[in-house]
């Protein structure tokens, strides 16, 4: 019960925070992308954290979502809300298709296979010009502001949509983790053969996790490009910019926990922005260099993510007070 009250408080504060920012400004854009990356990392967390399969190809689903809604809007005039749902379906189907050959792979092999899948999708999007517009990229056109058409003059509504998306993905993650599926996934993670013995269909459970994760990621792809407006295949199917970064957010925060991706996103995304602002004009590469160093230090210091900092702090705190 206490957890839920804390959760509600956080959500309320999160909803008030954007009101303090310039509604057409810079920080609200950064906040919106931070929230979206947190939600994406949460979606990744379902397969990467709960099923313990390190995917480095989530850009595939992200890009499918981005393109599905945009193509439906441009060619058929369908609202991006409908496009988002359609994108989610395609993303889930794509996750299913790639999961079949890769599900039984583990660790590094799974990571490499998914990385290659992301690249396959990127090449296809570049080559299939009649569908995607090719490497020239696509813009989401201006249209009169309306909620039904997912079109807003200010960034503020996008921020609230991103908050909602993060809350929903986090709830789904928690629901899975606490439910029967989470129990099965944990059993597989601890000991796959033992899980088989007690009657868990490991492939089926992992497949379910992969499909949910892929579908959510695709839906977030739609939300993301509504803010970015212009995108091309190399952006939305980017291995470094999406796949690896999403995994990185979750890993730095702490995988397999609901709070991890949120911590990771609120650390990495603003940090990248600040470093670009401080250093990028003076010495190109310096901001990325520092970013890389921080990444190395954090991994050496906390291989299980920031979340462990809070745990040890809490342990210290509760250990220190009378019991």
């Amino acid at each position, binding site marked *: 019960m206490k957890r839920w009250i804390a959760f509600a408080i956080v959500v309320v504060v999160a909803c008030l925070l954007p009101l303090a920012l310039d509604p057409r400004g810079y920080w609200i*854009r950064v906040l919106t992308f931070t929230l979206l990356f947190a939600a994406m990392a949460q979606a990744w967390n379902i397969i990467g954290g709960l099923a313990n399969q390190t995917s480095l190809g989530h850009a595939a689903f992200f890009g499918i979502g981005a393109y599905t809604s945009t193509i439906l809007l441009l060619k058929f005039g369908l609202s991006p809300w409908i496009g988002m749902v359609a994108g989610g379906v395609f993303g889930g189907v794509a996750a299913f298709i790639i999961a079949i050959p890769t599900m039984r792979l583990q660790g590094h092999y799974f990571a490499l296979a998914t990385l290659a899948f992301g690249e396959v999708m990127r090449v296809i999007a570049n080559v299939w010009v009649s569908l995607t517009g090719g*490497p020239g990229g696509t*813009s989401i056109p201006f249209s009169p502001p309306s909620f039904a058409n997912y079109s807003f003059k200010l960034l503020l509504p996008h921020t609230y949509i991103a908050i909602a998306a993060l809350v929903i993905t986090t709830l789904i993650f928690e629901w899975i983790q606490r439910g029967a599926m989470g129990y099965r996934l944990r059993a597989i993670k601890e000991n796959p053969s033992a899980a088989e013995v007690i009657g868990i269909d490991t492939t089926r459970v992992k497949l379910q996790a992969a499909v949910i994760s892929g579908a959510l990621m695709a839906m977030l792809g739609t939300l993301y490009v509504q803010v*970015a407006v212009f*995108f091309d295949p190399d952006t939305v199917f980017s291995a470094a910019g999406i796949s690896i970064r999403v995994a990185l957010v979750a890993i730095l925060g702490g995988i397999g926990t609901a709070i991890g991706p949120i911590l990771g996103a609120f650390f990495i995304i603003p940090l990248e922005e600040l470093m670009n*602002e401080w250093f*990028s*004009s*003076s010495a190109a590469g310096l901001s990325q260099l520092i970013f890389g160093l921080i990444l190395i230090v954090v991994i050496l210091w906390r291989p299980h993510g920031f979340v462990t900092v809070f745990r040890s702090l809490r342990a210290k705190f509760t250990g220190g007070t009378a019991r």
Partner: protein
Amino acid sequence: MPKKSTTLSVGLNRRTLLAGTASLLAAPMVLRPAFAQGKTVNVGVIMPLSGANAQFGINSRNGIELVADEINAAGGIKALGGAKINLIVADATSTPTTAGTVAQRLITQNDVTAILGAFASSLTLAISEVTERRDIPLLTMSFADQITGRGYKSIFQVVPKASVIGKAQFDYTKAIAEAAGAKISKIAIMYEDTAYGSAQAKGLRAGAQAANVEVVMDDAYPLGITDTTPLINKLRASGAQAVFPVSYLNDSLLIIRTMRQQKIDIPAIGGAAGYVIPDFEKGLGEFAENVLSVNTSNYDLAPEFTERFRKRFGYFMVHEAQEHAVALDVLVQAIEKAKSAKPEDVSAALRGAKFSEGWAKTMTGGAVQFDNTGLNVLSVPVMVQWRNKELVTVWPNDVAKAKAIWKS
């Protein structure tokens, strides 16, 4: 929040210094606040300073800094009481979304009057989605047709569009060959599958079709190709009389070297980018001699301006530097005309007017004039040829500095 950027702190120093001087000057007359308003005009410069296009981004920044320093040294913007130009440089990286975020930052944190950038079309397009919504003028030398093809009102493209450049690449070549008494009936096109490559290839195709010339090879190849042998094998088998490669530097070196290895000596006519920078000649040495390339401007058309660049930076003024220099100078002329640094006033002053002073003279039309879409209607592409480590304009005839050498 500690601001530690060197350029930024230099900017701050300069600004405080200026404010100080200004208040000293103004002291006898009226007591004005120390931060005399309008004493600097902030101009955003967003370029790829890291990533694969960093070299081009740095060239562009050099061109802009040259002009900014010259204008400031000559007393700043006269209509605004000698206000100085303050450049706010930022890295677009190679990600369009980041470029857009950076633009948002410059607009809200730095109150920029206008933004210049960002060499790569995809970055420029992403920035334009931000500037258009905030009515901030964006001046660019990116080639893509979409830039001025979307009906946006705050974007200004100082160069011709990619499809026009591609068509000129073909048309000029045909004219040069005919002037040398040769006739082209079969050509090959190879291009990297990026926004730039595919848009320019479209123009090449259109040119060939209009002239009834057969395209015997028309191949896109992936960005970052590490081995061009399959392309050149195909070229050799195609029987083309001229080849039109559109690529950045890496591939351009691979393509020319592999052609020489296989003793293919048909003329290669590059599509700007990798073919018109000093590194191309450095990488190929004597094999660069007589290679042709289309270009959107060339330094030998206005040496009285461009030699200043060479003197300061030690290499010839590459086209992206020159065109960005033009963009900044035209922007300043517009501010002078508007007598205001408000973005909407500057936008209005840019549209329609003809700018024929300063750096604008270095463009092929001798001036810059933007139409309703923001396209510079006076600019036409040129054909350049490598001669003894320099790029010489060889076409069109009225601006050519030397006669084209055509060997087939």
